[in-house]
């Protein structure tokens, strides 16, 4: 391809096109206007959010369902700074994202001019990498590298900050076909010696267990993991980020581990003799399940060497792309003289499966656990459910069962206000899939402005607001640990959410009984427009099952 003379702003859109970007989420401002002017001329769809942070969360939802880097844009100063929470949220959950921000003119940087903020400096702890594009001629190279870094290895957000004058500068543009960064070579295949050790550990194991993490989704290895589990008859548990990697109705699946996890799953990690950690960093909330384990063999497979040995000691460390490593393991398994079987171990775990039915709530209320299970019954198999943060997150994670759908949530950072914008992103990427945001009345009030985004762009997400008039998760902490001294957790003064939906022109229904729940869920699913259910739950309902 011969190079072509154009402005950097135009070149930026050409870079996005070359990367296959069709939709971007953003919020304009003066310092990013040259780029927006080129978006206007291109066929890239721009989705205007109502707060910059939600451009980031929408890109996150988009990236998580497509598996490819998604793009969000903001202007300099406050616009860029508003993105930081979304960048950090994506970083913690290893979501591939390219963030484009406008910056003041190059010669004004450092002089505290209007809407100037050192965004590359401020975002540094939360990005995989960042660029301040100072030399116009570096544009193509920087974009190519940014997408490559964001979308390979352990995925993550990459920020590109582009000064106003640079956007207007003219360059000879040609998008490179290949990229080579001498200091960045994400490992791919697992070390052969460690693979052998893992296979020996598998052969020796009487009670093997797979803990499925979020890396299985980013690494596109869900199918291979299922195969590895099935062929070798290994029970599977999952972290919150790994929910849905194993079909929840599989006889090999025992649920989510951790503080809010299933009994059988926590017993499984505590009594297995060999644990295969697949793309799971085992954060502290998940770790609580196996704090006291010292006497088992841990085979830890992760793309990021820094995660191996960080939270849990690994006896067999395997750094590599999870798809390739599972491929290597399966290749060895193919050579086994006879198939492994762990019937006794499975039967042992089977005893701990609990099938408690949530108790019915009193008049005028719905039990949230019952509600999520009922929603689950009616949702199509391929649905995407996005949980927010708080009690709603735990209720959803613990009661949703997924076959081929996805469960998205801000697992690492626990960012309130994630669900609605992330659902908008996921729905934009997959318009034919049902996408449901489940949030609380606390988190919804951090994000309900985004209903306008959904309406304006015809993004037909479904929203469930679980209302208990409290910041319930914090309330639980205050009840338990602070002798019931409740402070700052009452949501008195909240509006009627149905009326809010009404104001945005969004169909809605109030759910305050099991009967209205079933009716509401039916309406929500059959609607081909955005739809909101306000679900009234008892204020004292807890997350512990």
């Amino acid at each position, binding site marked *: 391809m011969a190079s072509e003379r154009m402005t950097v702003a135009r070149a930026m859109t050409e870079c996005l096109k070359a990367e296959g970007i069709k939709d971007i989420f953003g919020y304009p401002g003066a310092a990013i206007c040259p780029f927006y002017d080129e978006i206007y001329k291109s066929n890239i769809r721009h989705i205007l959010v109502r707060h910059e942070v939600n451009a980031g969360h929408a890109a996150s939802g988009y990236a998580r369902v497509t598996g490819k880097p998604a793009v969000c844009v903001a202007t300099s100063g406050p616009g860029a700074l508003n993105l930081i929470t979304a960048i950090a949220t994506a970083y913690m959950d290893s979501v591939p994202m390219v963030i484009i921000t406008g910056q003041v003119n190059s010669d004004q940087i450092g002089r505290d001019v209007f809407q100037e903020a050192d965004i*590359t*400096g401020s975002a*540094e*702890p939360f990005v*995989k*990498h960042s660029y*301040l594009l100072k030399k116009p001629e570096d544009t193509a190279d920087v974009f190519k590298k940014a997408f490559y*870094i964001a979308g390979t290895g352990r995925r993550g957000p990459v920020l590109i900050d582009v000064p106003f004058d640079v956007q207007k500068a003219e360059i000879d543009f040609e998008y490179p076909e290949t990229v080579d*960064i*001498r*200091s*960045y070579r994400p490992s791919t295949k697992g070390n052969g010696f460690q693979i052998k050790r893992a296979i020996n550990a598998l052969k020796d194991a009487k009670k093997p267990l797979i803990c499925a993490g979020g890396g299985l989704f980013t690494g596109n290895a869900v199918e291979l993991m299922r195969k590895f589990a099935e062929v070798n008859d290994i029970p599977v548990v999952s972290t919150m980020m790994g929910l849905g990697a194993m079909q929840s109705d599989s006889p090999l699946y025992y649920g989510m581990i951790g503080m809010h996890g299933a009994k059988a799953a926590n017993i499984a990690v505590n009594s297995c003799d060999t644990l295969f950690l697949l793309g799971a960093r085992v954060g502290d909330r998940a770790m609580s399940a196996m704090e006291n384990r010292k006497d088992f063999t841990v085979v830890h497979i992760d793309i*990021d*060497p*820094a995660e191996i*040995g*960080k939270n849990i000691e690994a006896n067999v460390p395997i750094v590599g792309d999870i798809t390739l490593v599972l491929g290597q393991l399966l290749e060895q398994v193919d050579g086994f003289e006879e198939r492994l079987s762990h019937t006794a171990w499975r039967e042992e775990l089977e005893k701990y499966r609990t099938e408690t039915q949530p108790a019915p709530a009193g008049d005028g209320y719905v039990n949230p656990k019952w509600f999520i299970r009922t929603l689950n019954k009616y949702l199509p198999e391929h649905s995407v459910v996005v949980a927010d943060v708080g009690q709603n997150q735990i209720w959803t994670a613990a009661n949703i069962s997924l076959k081929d759908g996805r469960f998205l949530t801000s697992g690492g950072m626990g960012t309130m206000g994630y669900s609605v914008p992330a659902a908008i992103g996921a729905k934009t990427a997959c318009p034919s899939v049902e996408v449901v945001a489940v949030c609380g009345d606390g988190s919804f009030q951090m994000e309900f402005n985004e209903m306008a985004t959904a309406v304006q762009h015809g993004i037909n997400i479904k929203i469930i607001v679980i209302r208990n008039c409290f910041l319930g998760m914090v309330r639980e902490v205050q009840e338990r640990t602070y002798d019931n001294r409740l402070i700052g957790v009452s949501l008195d003064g909240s509006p009627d959410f149905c009326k809010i939906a009404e104001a945005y022109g969004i169909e809605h229904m109030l759910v305050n009984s099991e009967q209205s729940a079933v009716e509401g869920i039916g309406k929500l699913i059959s609607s081909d427009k955005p739809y909101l259910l306000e679900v009234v739950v008892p204020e004292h309902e807890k997350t512990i099952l």
Partner: protein
Amino acid sequence: MKHTISVLVENHAGVLARVAGLFARRGFNIDSLAVGITDDEHISRITIVADGSKYTLEQIEKQLNKLIDVIKVKTLSPESMVSRELILIKVSCTPKQRPEIISICELSRGKISDISANSVTIEISDNAQNLNNFEELLRPYGIKEIVRTGTIAIQKGEQAVSLKN
């Protein structure tokens, strides 16, 4: 435990900030840090002396390697490296005391780099321990000012921390 880590990085703006920020936010302790160019103008070397357990050192190495601008990380073992700091010490010194101080300086392989009516400035490069000893020898005369660089270090023998190996 002290560890001396030799880090090759791309010679870009902001790289030092990324490295220093990483140590700060992950709670790794830096005793000293020295940055300089290498024989390749595109590559700088950062020599870090850090304090921490074996586990901490492993995390330092892995986290440094995750920074895109970091090309190579190598922890040098105390037995197989030569390490140096440069110190400039300004000591009170009457004309009468000069011969004494000059002899201490010579015995320690130092150099007088400035002299005035009532002071001398001495420069020495050596490892940190020897410099500390030297400092103690001069303390009785009255130390006016000390300026020390961070440690730099190189492996003994033919091996090198470079891109080639």
